[in-house]
């Protein structure tokens, strides 16, 4: 048997999908309306999944009293009500697709001390979701 705990967090941010290596026309073709020069925004929902032994003294994989402030500081405060392209250094030269955002959120959370980060799922809208899991192939670049 294996137990995991998943907690949902939310932030709102804007972005523009535009690759410097592509021409204006190629950008419009590849990214469609996401390439609109003034950008646009989403209410992002981040589901953070942790695994590990359930501590018999507390009944917990991780204490939400520790996890919530950690995620607030590492992710919510960093991204909430920001322009991802302009205000997040990691996206200065990287397209802030939600795939890339997922990897960045994973990188920011993977050092949580009390349990193992297993998965980060980001719902960009109720129709689009992206997941990154800790697998051997992912470890190399997380």
């Amino acid at each position, binding site marked *: 048997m294996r137990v995991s*705990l*998943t907690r949902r967090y939310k932030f709102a941010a804007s972005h523009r999908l535009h690759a410097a290596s592509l021409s204006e026309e190629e950008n419009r073709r590849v990214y469609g309306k996401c390439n609109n020069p003034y950008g646009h925004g989403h209410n992002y929902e981040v589901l953070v999944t942790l695994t590990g032994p359930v501590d018999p003294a507390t009944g917990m994989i991780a204490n939400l*009293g520790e996890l919530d402030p950690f995620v607030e500081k590492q992710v919510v405060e960093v991204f909430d009500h920001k322009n991802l392209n302009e205000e997040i250094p990691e996206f200065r030269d990287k397209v802030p697709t939600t795939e890339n955002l997922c990897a960045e959120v994973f990188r920011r959370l993977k050092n949580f001390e009390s349990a193992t980060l297993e998965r980060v799922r980001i719902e960009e809208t109720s129709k689009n979701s992206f997941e990154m899991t800790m697998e051997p192939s992912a470890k190399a670049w997380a």
Partner: protein
Amino acid sequence: MIRITRKVEFSASHIYHNPAFSAEENRRIFGKCNNPHGHGHNYTLEVTIAGEPDPNTGMVLDLKELKEILQKEIVDRMDHRHLNYEVPELAGKIPTCENVALVIWNLLKPHITTGKLDRVRLYESADLYADVTGGGQA
């Protein structure tokens, strides 16, 4: 392999308190979940069964049968109950989402004789859930 999932809801109260800790430690570790009078949640339980559809019925497991198991084993036992005091399987345990999901897994496991119990997902709220799986990848 096909996975089928059935959802049920129940409401229950609980308190997080470990008698091995001092009153102060209990407050520090469990925060408002240590409020002595307890508090409650609307739980949502999703139970997933994995298996091959029976060629005669097209079903992994008759969902009506699963519904009856969930009603008898979980809802009748936990709905509108205090998890600490009225559910013997949780006696002496802190009724966290993790522990309640584990107890639910153990209660259901012997009753799933067609297909295989694949996952128990217990939502304590829309923003928090625990998964119990049979092992391997969650």
